[in-house]
């Protein structure tokens, strides 16, 4: 049962592939952004699970505890989450503009309009 200790990576891979599938297979632009969010969250879970230490505690100093999980990935992900939401907002703003120009947020309809011009 040696391989069972790797289950956290498999959860990450499954979530990542779900997000990836949405991004490449769905035509709706808002849904693509949701897919990117899922992908992103899977990366967050990957980093945080790397930081976890058996028998460790949350990285806030308490008298008498010597084992903590690694604070560095926590910092990286903390900033990544906020950057992620800023970029999500940027993407959504572009979607709003696309809807104003084309009247649609479906990828294939936009391609059709581009082709007919």
């Amino acid at each position: 049962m040696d391989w069972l200790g790797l289950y956290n990576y498999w959860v990450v891979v499954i979530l990542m592939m779900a997000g990836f599938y949405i991004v490449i297979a769905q035509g709706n632009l808002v849904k693509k952004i949701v897919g990117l969010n899922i992908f992103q969250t899977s990366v967050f879970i990957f980093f945080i699970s790397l930081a976890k230490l058996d028998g460790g505690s949350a990285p806030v100093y308490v008298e008498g505890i010597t084992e903590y999980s690694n604070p560095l990935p926590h910092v990286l992900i903390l900033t990544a989450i906020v950057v992620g939401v800023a970029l999500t907002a940027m993407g959504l703003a572009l979607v709003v503009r696309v809807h104003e120009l084309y009247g649609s947020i479906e990828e294939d309809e936009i391609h059709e309009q581009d082709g007919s011009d």
Partner: protein
Amino acid sequence: MNQYTVLRVIAKIMIPVILLYGLYIQFHGEYSPGGGFQAGIIFAAGFVIYSLIYGLEKVQQAVPPVAVHVLAAFGVFLFIAFGIAGMLMGGDFLQYRVFMEDNHAAETLGIIGIELGVGITVATVAIALFYAFAGRERD
């Protein structure tokens, strides 16, 4: 949503608590989980809830968009100013040790300073994004 009395009353009670919690997260971030990022988002959430219930115009009267944009720039400026202050006092960029004799006090001062900068930036950016999306009219 002006006609929902329950929402209006609950919001009036909850919003000061949310803002206070945001400030607590901001300034207690050294001793418990928290810091500028979380505090900024929570603080912004208070304004967002208010505008969802009382309307965008009311909030924009209190906090005009221009002020939000200027404050966002000010947050980044505060951060960089703390970095440059370290340089002017003979250290490296973002080195806090030179602020005071006592290392711990100097580091804590620097950390509180840049966490404040981050908190202001995040809160105002979140409010500005909400203004941008909510203030746009469908055409």
